[in-house]
């Protein structure tokens, strides 16, 4: 499509934008959540979850590749008709809206717990929204560049996370498969929410310069995410005893707490400050998705009105102050909704499209024959 010509993103930006969307607040909670269900075998669940995500991601790329350059809405209306297509798009938009709301609330709650206990919610969100506005105004290209920047900017964190390994015990991981495969498969459920963000391939694909590399790109993006989660989970499992890790809500932060310099204590504050960047890259694409979809649905170019969403978030944060348990519940809902929208839908839709084209071609063949 001609209107995207100037806004192309490179393969690296595409990879890092998707990886950035995936790696979010789960980096802090995943190890504890996994060990609640699967014990120290939880790391195997991450690998299974990653394979699952990669398959669904490939379905998305395959779908989009049928009509390169089509946006998601154009693809949906092509196969589902104008109204059903738009309806599905609205559902996706609401899903993205819910996702970004949860991400923002969790981010703010973590910031308030660990760094800024006396700052009000809406003030933190205002600061986040200013950055978000600057970035999404620039469109997908700037989002891609921002993801690139954040990835290289936070590259030091994994190295710092290796420090606690001097007090690690390999023996904690043994025996592998202690309770068999059932708890491991059960814990895959927990990892799916951590891998969410791959569905933004729908958003980024049309802007990708070299569309042939899209499949390769998304596999790399998923693999990067796998490495990030596997690294954090294994470090946590090696450092914390399997019996104690379940007691921490954010084990990754407790992990870096003992790192101490004569001039600096509470290392985790620096960590959280860096993690704000990671959290922002996981929220921004969703916000952009919502705003972009709105202007597409109403078919208006350079529409300013959807940007009102950003101040709206501040208002929402001013009035809505969920407790920790409520946030956990929202996260759970997000997980459940994502099964249908992010995981099941692309696969079902691919089946439908393949069947549809097959059936149509046969019809044409019949006519010709």
């Amino acid at each position, binding site marked *: 499509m001609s209107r995207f010509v100037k806004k192309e993103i490179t393969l690296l930006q595409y990879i890092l934008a998707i990886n950035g969307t995936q790696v979010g607040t789960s980096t802090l909670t995943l190890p504890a959540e996994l060990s609640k269900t699967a014990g120290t075998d939880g790391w195997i669940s991450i690998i299974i979850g990653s394979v699952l995500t990669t398959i669904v991601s490939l379905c998305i790329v395959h779908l989009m590749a049928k009509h390169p350059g089509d946006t998601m809405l154009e693809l949906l209306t092509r196969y589902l008709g104008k109204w059903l297509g738009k309806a599905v798009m609205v559902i996706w938009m609401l899903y993205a809206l819910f996702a970004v709301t949860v991400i923002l609330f969790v981010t703010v709650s973590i910031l308030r*717990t660990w760094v800024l206990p006396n700052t009000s919610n809406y*003030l933190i969100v205002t600061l986040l929204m200013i950055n978000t506005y600057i970035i999404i105004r620039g469109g997908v290209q700037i989002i891609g560049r921002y993801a690139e920047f954040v990835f290289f900017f936070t590259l030091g964190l994994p190295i710092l996370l290796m420090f606690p390994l001097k*007090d690690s015990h390999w023996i904690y991981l043994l*025996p592998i498969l*202690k309770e068999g495969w059932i708890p491991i498969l059960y814990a895959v459920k927990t990892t799916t929410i951590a891998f969410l963000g791959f569905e933004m391939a729908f958003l980024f694909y049309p802007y990708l310069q070299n569309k042939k590399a899209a499949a390769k790109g998304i596999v790399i993006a998923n693999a990067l995410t796998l490495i990030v989660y596997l690294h954090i989970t294994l470090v946590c499992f090696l450092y914390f005893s399997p019996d104690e890790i379940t007691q921490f809500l954010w084990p990754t932060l407790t992990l870096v707490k003992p790192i101490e310099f004569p001039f600096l*204590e509470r290392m*985790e504050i620096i960590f959280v400050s860096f993690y704000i960047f990671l959290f922002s890259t996981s929220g921004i694409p969703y916000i952009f998705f919502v705003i972009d979809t709105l202007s597409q649905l109403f078919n208006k170019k350079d529409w300013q009105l959807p940007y009102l969403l950003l101040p709206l978030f501040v208002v929402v944060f001013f009035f809505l102050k969920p407790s920790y348990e409520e946030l956990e519940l929202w996260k759970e809902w997000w997980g459940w909704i994502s099964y249908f929208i992010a995981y099941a839908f692309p696969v079902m839709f691919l089946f439908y499209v393949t069947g549809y084209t097959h059936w149509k071609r046969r019809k044409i063949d019949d006519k010709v024959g």
Partner: protein
Amino acid sequence: MIKWAKFILACFWLLLMPACGDRLNVENTTLSLVYGLDVDGDDKIIVYQVSPVFNKDAKKKYEVYGAKTDTTRQAREVFNSVSNGEIATGKLQVLMFSERLLKKESILPYLDVAYRDPKNTGNMRIVAVKGSVSSIVNSEFSDKPALPMYLTNVVDVEKESNRTAFVTLQHFHTLAFDKGITPAISEIKKGKTAIVVTGSVLLDKKARYKMSLNRRESALLLMLQKEARLPVSLTIRMPPPSLKTLNVRKNRKEPGFITVNIVGLSRSISTHYKKNRFSFDVKMNLEIDLAERTFDVDMKKKKEQLTAIITDQLEKELNGLIQKVQKQHLDPFGFGWYARAYQYQQWKKVDNRWPDEFSRATVTVTPTIKIKSHGVIE
């Protein structure tokens, strides 16, 4: 016009955003460095805190507050009511428990606040006090640095020389909640002229006092845990018959002594389950340097005999320590981890009462020793 509006808006934000409303100057805080918990006769606990005084006019460089309360956190409000600045616990270095408290009840409820509050550091040292906490915090040594610093340093020095089971708050969490190990913490007492680190205290699974280890036993414990910082220095007394085998001319009445520095330490544990009980076979490979020897011996000819004697002594001591600890139904060595890792099916059945099960287990430690060097003299 719009430019001006934006400018005014930006200024407005700048006024609003800098969050200096809740800043706290260092002069206005009471920076607690040491906390101590003790009990009196009744249900309440006595909490002490020691903090440095940053004031030229004050004669004493640190201040001590005590409060009788129900919980640890409650004490802070009592301290605030008398102190010069708001109590800040973020820099706590030492957290002391009197043995009387440790014997009376579990200390885990008192530690909850330390784990729950993210403002706390995870690096404070957990220390048991022989005698009352007030004897430590009210002690005055004219030739030592200010008490909070001295207390911190004295524990750290013993950590470096492997004579006490050094535990930080975060590490204690592992020891207290892991089912396969029981906690061991440092033990101090007030001596006449100084604070003395007397060794370690072993706690049970509920974090109650069970027994004390002296400094030498603490060193052996650290070696068995493989937590010892090398080199570990041990002085071994030569049993009289052994001196005969070494052909030592007995010129003095005292028995011979030998001091070794353990410079290399590797450990392998094989775990079995047979005859209804766990058995652990611990092989320790020690590389030692001779640091001191009070008797004459021909190192070229008698090296093997000497090695055998040292091995024998160490083996006796290590096995003795394990049996002594087993009798108290404790496992500060972490053998439970090996039971979990290699005998998971059996471990599953006993994991909730592991220390009891461990007291029935057979443990054999076999050290192998290699003398690497004997210094710069023959």
